């Protein structure tokens, strides 16, 4: 693993520390009577913004009130990300390509799982409705989009990553570039992956 590669992974890992203290995702709602918009931010361990107001409005269509207790993930998400960061730093310092590949694959897997989990919550939140709700539109469900905008009754709901999310995506992207570079362009040390044995010193 090249020195530059390991440096990039080190920086990316450190950058991800910031995501522990920032919202990852932002859902914005706009309606004719809400020109100022309603906003909800999703963090690794909490939700913030106009949550009470959004819950108050959504109860008409039978959606559950949003609360931290709906997200058992809040209990361990931070720990997982800290784990990714710490192992990322270790991998960068050890500079072993095979370790890096494993680490990056794990990172990618966790990210994919996280996004799938989020989508899953959105699906449940939008589909699992109270049958006694005041407003029931036959065939209508209210799943917010993962990325992008969608009209849900009078609300236009837009969902996008925000600061913390961008940092993780950015970190993931550069790590992917490093992954691609190390795998396909840094051929001199390609063998290291195949031969992979402890104590093997990759080309420096």
């Amino acid at each position, binding site marked *: 693993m090249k020195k530059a590669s390991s440096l990039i992974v080190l920086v990316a890992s450190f950058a991800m520390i910031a995501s522990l203290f920032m919202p990852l995702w932002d859902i914005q709602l706009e309606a004719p009577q809400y020109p100022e918009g309603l906003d909800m931010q999703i963090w690794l361990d909490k939700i913030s913004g106009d949550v009470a107001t959004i819950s*108050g409005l959504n109860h008409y269509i039978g959606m559950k009130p949003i609360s931290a207790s709906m997200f058992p993930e809040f209990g361990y998400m931070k720990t997982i990300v800290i784990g990714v960061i710490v192992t990322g730093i270790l991998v960068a310092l050890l500079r072993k390509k095979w370790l890096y590949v494993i680490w990056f694959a794990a990172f990618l897997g966790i990210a994919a799982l996280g996004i799938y989990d989020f989508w899953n919550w959105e699906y449940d939140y939008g589909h699992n409705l109270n049958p006694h709700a005041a407003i029931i539109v036959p065939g209508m469900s209210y799943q917010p989009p993962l990325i992008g905008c969608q009209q849900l009754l009078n609300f236009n709901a837009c969902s996008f990553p925000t600061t913390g999310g961008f940092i993780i995506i950015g970190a993931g992207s550069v790590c992917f570039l490093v992954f691609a570079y190390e795998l396909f362009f840094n051929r001199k040390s390609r063998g290291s992956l195949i031969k992979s044995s402890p104590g093997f010193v990759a080309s420096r």
Partner: protein
Amino acid sequence: METFKKNKGTLSKLGLLSLFIIILSAAGCGGGKEKKSVVTGDAAGKVYVAPGKYDEFYEFLSGGFSGQVSVYGLPSCRLLKVIPVFAVNAENGYGFTEESKAMLNSTHGFIPWDDSHHTELSMTDGKPDGRWLFINSNNTPRIARIDLSTFRTTEILEIPNSGGNHSSPFTTENTEYVVAGTRFSVPITGNKDVPINSYKQNFQGTITFVKVDKTTGNMGVAFQILMPPFDYDLSHSGKGPSTGWFFFSCYNTEMAHTLLEANASQNDKDFIAAINWKKAEEYIAAGKGKSFPSEYYHNKLDEKTHMTTSEVLKNTIMLDPKDCPGLVYLMPCPKSPHGADVDPTGEYIVGGGKLATVIPVFGFKKLQKAIEAKDFIGDVNGIPIVKYESCMAGEVQKPGLGPLHTEFDGKGFAYTSFFVSSEVVKWKLGTWEVADRIPTYYSIGHLSIPGGDSKSPWPKYLLAMNKITKDRYLLTGPELNQSAQLIDITGDKMKMLYDFPTIGEPHYAQGIAADLVMKNQVKVFKLEESTHPYVCRQEKDTRVERKGNRVDVYMTSIRSHFAPDNIEGIKVGDEVYFHVTNLEQDWDTPHGFAIKGSTSSELLIMPGETQTLKFSPKTADIYPFYCTDFCSALHQEMQGYMRVSPANSNVPLSFSTGKE
């Protein structure tokens, strides 16, 4: 006092006669067929504020006999809000709810109405700062303070030792004081049970300085000055070079007690009283003020508890000018002056003599020189009268008929309203020449330029507030709203822009650049900050408690239900207090509350607020209650029932929400 003896000659009678002729001829012309509109060119474009766009200025109009304040946006002249102040307002429960009742307490008991006269914005460095608005009540003397972050009346202070509060509540440059002056003199220091015709011996006036707290705005009577029994009409604070002085116009210097229209119009000159309030502070510090037993109410709204409480105060400090040389001087002013208006530089004081044929302008420097030279022509009760010529800086000749009130554009021009000749006259300070005039419809009283009595006016618009309406709008029977006209003052010539009906009878208005008020706006009351004694922060805390025949209902409202919405076990003879907390924390989501048969008002509860309605049901019955403010798609479903049983019934107290 040669000069101020009654002028009994035929001259004054001739004067009166000619006035009648003028009024009659004006009436004759007014009945003409052609109604004047006199707008030119792009007037419509200048008042057009596109949908969704904001006005440039807030304009606060006094409500006069409505007792309230109305708020308009300029230049669109759109009504933004009516703020209840001195009159109860069933629309939002002001004066009816348990929280707000105390605001209208006085030594005379609860007063549901008054006559609100002059709006005055709080000032910093002689400029409106957008924090508070003060307004006086003329009938039962009081001053109210409105908080411009909530547009609510947050304080009312009763003015003791006053027969009526007209020359009020004008403020000093940094809102150190707001003032009050007696419109009606009454017996103050002696026996109050005296013959009315002993007016000259037994009646007195007072001028009151009310201290305003710099940060909270809370008011308190600082001191009062005992004055001769004149009628104190209007006033303004000095500024710049005249800092530390206050100027009050007075009429009825004849000291008449009956048929004032004639008897108080005899003297060629009345007065503008110049008061050195810095000197007053020195006298107070030196112990010259006398403690004066007085009873008066001070009512305050606590923003955290949402409750108004009354405090009864028992004392003021009285200064007698006799013992305080240099405190008050009288400047002769022709004739029955109304306005006493100080120009932006602080040098000129403009008098508006209702019956005068000139506009007299006094110079502050000249006044100081005259005082130094003791250029006096007599005194009233020991208060020196300065020689007119020695303090007068100039006179605007042949300005019009019936000058009332003057405001300024900060560019060297003054604008004076003329009631009798029904016009606004623009004239130049220093040269005293008339520059322009424009008719108003009809008979203007006061006028207002945003910031027009401050150090730096916003010289764009002038609002003319008229006393007679007649044919200006679609007719509405014999009782017509008053009319106001918006005039463009940006050019050499004034231009009429717009004409609109107003609320009550505006006696004065003040305007301010919108951003100074907009930036402080409160959108919701924070639920977690409420310390209301009956607040319910969440639905599960709702309950009904009985203590004897008093029943307290701790109720919440949120889109779209009340909790509880079924209440049983109430008996005839109970006093039920509905303490309704609006749980919403979202902007513009008020809920209302009304119950059948209530002899009070409704409640209109802002987000995070708790309001209380007292209800004593007279008969056993089922009483529906409901939300009165269309809050949501299911607003019409936001309702509930209270079961009231006979006095001797055994129905247990119970309450529920959503229980089948």
